[in-house]
């Protein structure tokens, strides 16, 4: 039992972060908090990928003298791409929030719904 919990600690961290991020996206009304939650959700996925690429007794996947075992470099490269995608999504989301603030005067979801439904 303890081995199950401690041996898979990386998966536990991934699950906690994923649920925290997802819950923030769903429950918070402030648009910036939604973007922050989305970011936490994406970071948990990055941790998932990198942690499964780790090789026991392996070092960072850069060729250096004196090391035989390296961790899997493919997962690192996949995560680089995913990080860039996450940055682009965040930038686009924040730009939309700036425009929404100018158009509606507020970044709270309830206020925006009220203004739209009163049309």
């Amino acid at each position, binding site marked *: 039992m303890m081995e199950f919990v401690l041996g898979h600690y990386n998966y536990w961290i991934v699950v906690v972060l994923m649920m925290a991020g997802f819950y923030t996206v769903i429950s918070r009304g402030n648009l910036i908090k939604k973007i922050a939650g989305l970011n936490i959700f*994406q970071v948990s996925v990055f941790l998932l990928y990198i942690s499964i690429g780790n090789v026991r007794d392996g070092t960072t996947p850069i060729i250096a003298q004196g090391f035989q075992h390296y961790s899997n470099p493919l997962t690192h490269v996949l995560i680089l791409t995913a990080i860039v995608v996450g940055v682009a*999504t965040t930038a686009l*989301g924040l730009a939309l929030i700036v425009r929404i603030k100018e158009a509606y005067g507020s970044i709270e979801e309830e206020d925006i719904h009220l203004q*739209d439904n009163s049309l």
Partner: protein
Amino acid sequence: MIEQHLSILLVVIPLLAAPITAILPRARIAWLLTLLITWSCLLLAVWQLQSVLDGNIISYELGGWAPPWGIEYRIDTLNAFVAVIVAAIAAITLPYALRSVEQEIDPRHIPLFYTAFLLCLTGLLGITLTGDIFNLFVFLEISSLSSYALISMGRQRQALTAAFQYLVMGTIGATFLLIGIGLIYSETGTLNMLDLAGRLPSVFELRTVHTAFAFIMIGVALKLALFPLHLWLPNAYTYAPTVITIFLAATATKVAIYVMLRMVYTVFSIGFAEDTPLNEMFMLLGVIGVLFASLSAIYQTNSKRLLAYSSVAQIGYMVLGIGFGSVLGLTATIVHIFNHALMKAALFMAVGALIYRVGSSHLRDWNGLGRQMPWTFAALVIAGLSLIGLPGTAGFISKWYLVSAAVEQQNWLIAFIILVGSLLAVVYVWKMVEVLFFRDANTSTAETREAPLLLLVPTWLLVLANLYFGFNTELTVDIARSAASMMEASAP
């Protein structure tokens, strides 16, 4: 020499044109460049389809690295068919776009609009052509990010909130897909679709693979706007610029259906999906989607929102076709991908012509316009009849195959529900026809003339294509049937 590089040129040419369009100074030049690019993409896509029609498969290795270590573009009949649909819709929308975009978008931003359009086209074509699942995720994100930006350029301020809602939901969907990809990578060690199909059967029983399958299905279903994950679609289609509604309604969800087909049939191979309740879920959600969305469409007063709900219903039909799990069902889905692209694009183009003249998409502003704009009205009626499934139009062919697939499995309830869906479509199409033809004109719109030629010609091209493919079904049905049997045959 172009022959051997066809597949990659389809992605490289719009990608090369996009940064050039971003720095062009004038709107007309940007439009002209985009027009040339989309037309050349269409030619390349048709050439590619002809090369794979007799059953051979094109395999293109990027960077000279052999698969499964390198990224591979793998083209078979299904791929090439969907690529032709995307390129054709883009090519037809561009002449339409000249007037429509100039009316709806700030002239300083029009070059950037076309840049985002080209990036969206690159993303969609990349999704259809690639044979590597991580490459699929990257292109999916490219097309999604550019569509978020494009949707937010609509005239009303609700376009911004619609784009934001789509951004949040779309990113969650893509991240679910990423989780699924990571989990199957951890069990097989490869990202190439064909290699995965070879390696996954030995690890089918593992819970990781089941979880990965669930994540991938939910992620793709979000992009697909499968009921109940369709909430982003009505707002996004209603408030986007008209050209973007036309383009996305006819391509984005179809490409997502293609991704679903690839995942279920090629990557996971049908043997896996049959052990899960996937087929029953698809049939259930498809049927509920058809009924719920058609009913919602009837109550709408905004024409674009009405057609958006109709799109959700049609996606329900396509998913229903997958849910049958037979060659006939798959043929129905693939044929419907083509026919729905034609129908919806024609409908949204006709609606867009009305919006161009009147400036509003609400039905109450459209009283009696059908008599003043006869060509647009006729286009809308014919496209609407195709949506309902009248014999002689393209829509009838898809409905015919769907009902045949239901009857083949003795599932009379589903066949009945498909027909009920068509009846509901009659109601909401009649709603638009009645407002346009049988009411007296509003005083404010009494002077509107017919839509300009540049808007009418693409609309009528699509309407005539609807009629043509309703009578001459050889091309589409043969391609669909060969693609469907190829999918079924790849089962171990």
